[in-house]
């Protein structure tokens, strides 16, 4: 390249001049091309960013709707449950109201009767006691011997009558006291009954306060208030992590369960058969565990503890209860099967240990420990209990499924927001990259550009240099 003249330096200078001249000539076109490319990329990325931003907004709205719907449903369930409790309480108390009323009426009637009877005052002792005393003080020696005798007899008779009257009075008083004593249990019964009624009323009042609070929150949710959204969102995240944690524990339990029954399963379905590259025994054990979990789900659904399957929830109560009994029976049978398999596992283990010891020539090791029944029992117990424990997986699973929808929405929104930001950033980068490239293009052309500017000034040309224009 440097051979176009006999002197390399001259050749190089010539090349530079030629290149600069060529670049200067195509400068306007090159600038337009760079600008068009930069603008094109800038607009494309801006459009993409706006599209992503719109998607993010739509997603936010949708997520908000989902969150509100979930919160609304949850609150409805809580309020419904509270009303159910109130209904139950009222039903129970009102059902007993007639008997309560009767008990109270009877008690009050008895008290009234006893009181009435107690009010009847016994007759006073005779008022002529003073006369008797006067008769008694008359001396017989005054010469009225006969009169004295008569009066003495009268005195005796009167004393006797007085004693009888006193006895009757005492008896009457005792009777009144007895009647008053009879009234005591009736008072207590009335007090207890009224206490129970008071408790029920207090319970209803406290429940009504709770319902008021829930109703306020429900109204906030229905109104779509930001505070409600914030609470629901945070609650959804907490639910997600807590339920995920519990599900992890449940998976651990299922794994233990699997290891308990996979080995003895080989006795039933063979140890070498394969389905899709996996041992049939392992698949059978897994299927049993999955069936148990399914039965647990149906049981929880039938008991209306979870609401994963609306069809089950909508069944008539009679069929639903029947379904609960059937699923529980199946679960119980499967638990029994698992306990049997766990026992079989222990038997197989002993058999295998004995065979290994025999093959090693270690006959002493074949003796079974006297405490081995503990591990056998523990394994059987685990085999029986774990299926029932796995039943409760339905509760965290439902929470996980419901909160997952919101969490996925939040993650998607974050991703879309980030993508939108990156696209906007790229759009701006390309815009300024175009400016930068034009400046870089002009860098080697500083001489002709300076000359152009100088000549323009000299000729008094009013128009701005092209560089400035562009």
């Amino acid at each position, binding site marked *: 390249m440097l051979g176009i003249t006999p002197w390399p330096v001259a050749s190089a200078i010539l090349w530079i001049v030629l290149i600069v001249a060529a670049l200067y000539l195509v400068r306007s076109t090159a600038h337009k091309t760079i600008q068009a490319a930069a603008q094109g990329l800038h607009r494309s990325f801006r459009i993409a960013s706006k599209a992503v931003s719109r998607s993010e907004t739509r997603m936010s709205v949708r997520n908000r709707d989902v969150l509100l719907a979930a919160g609304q449903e949850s609150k409805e369930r809580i309020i419904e449950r509270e009303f159910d409790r109130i209904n139950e309480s009222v039903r129970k108390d009102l059902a007993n109201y007639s008997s309560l009323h009767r008990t109270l009426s009877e008690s009050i009637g008895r008290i009234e009767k006893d009181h009435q009877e107690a009010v009847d005052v016994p007759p006073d002792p005779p008022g002529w006691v003073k006369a008797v005393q006067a008769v008694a003080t008359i001396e017989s020696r005054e010469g009225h011997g006969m009169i004295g005798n008569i009066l003495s007899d009268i005195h005796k008779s009167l004393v006797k009558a007085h004693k009888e009257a006193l006895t009757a009075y005492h008896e009457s008083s005792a009777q009144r006291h007895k009647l008053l004593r009879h009234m005591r249990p009736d008072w207590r019964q009335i007090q207890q009954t009224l206490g129970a009624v008071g408790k029920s009323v207090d319970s209803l009042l406290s429940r009504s306060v709770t319902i008021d609070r829930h109703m306020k929150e429900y109204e906030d949710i229905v109104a779509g208030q930001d505070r409600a959204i914030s609470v629901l969102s945070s609650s959804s995240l907490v639910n997600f992590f807590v339920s995920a944690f519990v599900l992890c524990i449940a998976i651990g339990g299922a794994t233990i369960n699997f290891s308990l029954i996979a*080995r003895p399963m*080989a*006795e039933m379905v*063979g*140890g*070498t*058969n*394969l*389905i*899709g*590259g996996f041992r*049939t025994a392992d698949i059978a054990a897994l299927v049993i565990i999955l069936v148990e979990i399914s039965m647990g789900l149906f049981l929880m659904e039938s008991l209306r503890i979870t609401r994963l399957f609306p069809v089950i929830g909508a069944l008539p109560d009679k069929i639903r209860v029947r379904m609960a009994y059937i699923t529980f029976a199946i679960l119980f049978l499967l638990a029994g099967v698992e306990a049997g398999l766990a026992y079989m596992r222990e*038997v*197989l283990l002993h*058999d*295998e240990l*004995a*065979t*290994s010891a*025999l*093959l*090693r*020539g270690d006959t002493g090791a074949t003796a079974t420990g006297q405490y081995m029944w503990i591990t056998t029992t523990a394994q059987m117990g685990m085999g029986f209990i774990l299926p029932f424990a796995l039943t409760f997986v339905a509760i965290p699973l439902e929470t996980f499924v419901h909160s997952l929808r919101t969490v996925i929405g939040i993650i998607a929104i974050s991703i879309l927001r980030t993508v939108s930001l990156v696209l906007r950033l790229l759009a701006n980068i390309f815009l300024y990259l175009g400016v930068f490239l034009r400046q870089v293009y002009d860098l080697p052309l500083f001489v002709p550009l300076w000359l152009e500017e100088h000549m323009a000034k000299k000729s008094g040309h009013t128009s701005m240099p092209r560089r400035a224009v562009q």
Partner: protein
Amino acid sequence: MKKGILVALCVLLASCGAKDRTATNSGVYMLLDTSGTYTEELEKAEQIIRYTLSKLDASDSFAVARIDTGSFSEKDIIAKASFDDRPSAINRQKRLFAQQVSDFVDNVKPAPYTDITGGLLQAVEFLNEKDTGKKTILIFSDLKEDLAEGYIRDIDVEFAGFKVIALNVTKLRSDNIDPREYLDRLENWKRRVEKTGGEWQVINDLDGLDGIL
């Protein structure tokens, strides 16, 4: 439509279930030399058999046969078993197998001749019949073949796909005088096995049995 779906499901299940279980199982045939003073070594052989039994699992096959005057015969098989699918049955089979071998070792009588080739032919035939994934022949012998008159054993045995392991190849008195005889004997057997595509290995240190199966 429904029939089509049913047939497709059946085919799918059949294709899943009909996996070739022999592809991964093992077949082991062990030959025990009962000639002359080598019978004294049979207690070691019994240990190897027990070790082999402990290593084998469901659907594997194992047979132990003696090498005597004419070894190409099923009558020379001392014990054989194709292990069941069920673990409990496998344990029973292993215990029975070990007992049969133990009885044999206790009552063995030395054979006048040593027909190793006949035993190998029998082993190849047995393992081919079992069609196992891996085929291993263990020869517990000094590898000194001594044929009775009239027995023709100058034949090529097809060892392709077989692993032949010579165990406890003891040195004879003549080997001590001329070690070349021992080395030639080993080389001769190696050539015969590898000639037809087999794999040859010698293990004299019985502590190094790990990993042979």
